[in-house]
């Protein structure tokens, strides 16, 4: 097969269909999404360092461990322990490792400004395979989480406490496109729980999405994306919302 241009796929007509799809989305949402007030959009990389760095760290740690065991315990224990560790790792984090080996890190397209309280938000989740893959429609679950994080001193120690004050799961369907696996997720920022993003030295309110795909051809590892909520009550949320 001839070398494909960047972002291309090998099926005839796919590029044309993808172009029409993108054009339709832009016509529908103005600039890719309904809640984006400015031309253009931005992509948010997965911000969870744990998920992103786990597979390479594991792939490096196992051989290093093997060499150490070989040097200090001999070949037989080294082989047995490494095999056991490898099997355990594969069982425990197979989705993450497979996702890392076969897929690029996912990105989400979110609004270029903080979301308003009560706003119906739309994010677009995208994940490209490393090789051309046939992707059938699959489910995506997205957990919207608001956490309060506080720092305090106890004796001479600096302590940190985090509590989830809002958590809600929504589902969406993703499908294969020229951009890989793509799904549009809709959710509403609540007005009755959590609060606008707060960033003070010892008191913080943070929001994030934890997105996981479920399907035979897509990896099921979870990725976390941080976002911010503004101190604006969305006009759509003002109707029928009252404190009195």
């Amino acid at each position, binding site marked *: 097969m001839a070398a494909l241009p960047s972002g291309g796929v090998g099926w005839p007509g796919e590029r044309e269909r993808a172009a029409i799809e993108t054009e339709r989305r832009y016509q529908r949402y103005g600039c890719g999404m309904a809640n984006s007030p400015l031309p253009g959009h931005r992509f948010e990389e997965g911000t969870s360092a744990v998920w992103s760095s786990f597979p390479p760290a594991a792939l490096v740690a196992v051989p290093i461990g093997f060499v150490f065991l070989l040097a200090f315990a001999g070949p037989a224990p080294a082989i047995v322990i490494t095999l056991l560790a490898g099997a355990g790792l594969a069982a425990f984090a197979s989705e993450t490792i497979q996702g890392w080996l076969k897929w690029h890190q996912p990105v989400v397209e979110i609004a270029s400004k903080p979301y308003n*309280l009560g706003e119906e938000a739309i994010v677009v989740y995208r994940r490209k395979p490393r090789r051309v893959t046939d992707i059938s429609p699959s489910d995506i679950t997205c957990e919207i989480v608001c956490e*309060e994080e506080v720092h305090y001193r106890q004796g001479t120690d600096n302590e940190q406490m985090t509590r989830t004050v809002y958590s809600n799961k929504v589902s969406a369907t993703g499908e294969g496109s020229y951009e890989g696996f793509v799904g549009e997720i809709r959710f509403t920022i609540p*007005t009755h729980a959590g*609060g*606008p993003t707060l960033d003070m030295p010892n008191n913080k*309110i943070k929001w994030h999405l934890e997105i996981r795909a479920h399907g035979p051809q897509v990896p099921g590892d979870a990725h976390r994306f941080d976002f911010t909520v503004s*101190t*604006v009550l969305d006009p759509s949320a003002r109707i029928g919302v009252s404190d009195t």
Partner: protein
Amino acid sequence: MTLQLQVDSLAAEVGGAFTGQLVRQADADGASNASKAREIRVQLLLRTEGRGTTDEAVVSSLTQPLQRYGGINAPFTLGVPPRSAVSYDGSLIRVLYRIEARVDLRLSRDIIVYRNVLVVPVGGLGMYTRAHPLPRPPQASAGGPAADG
């Protein structure tokens, strides 16, 4: 001697302002005695409460000169900057606001009076009588998501 801090509305939006009136009777006649009062400072203060170490900030402030004999009867306006936090009553964190007026007295303890106020989200005036978040709407509690934490 007492200072009166009158606030027109106890709630203001982020990006809005608190307005009110400062009233203080003159405490000197200028002949037999002079007033110790030098100036009066009005501040919008933010303070966190809860499990974490308290964070405090002066959100906005202004200084008013006093009249010759220590009296004042003047309006004031304190802006709430656009990037301010809102009053919040959460699980580990509470964000509280107060307007504090402080009379600076020479060689004496300052006179301080304050009013607790609410800073509400933009567009939230008339909808909040307490700190964010709003109470859960009835329809959401009947069939809403069960996973809400």
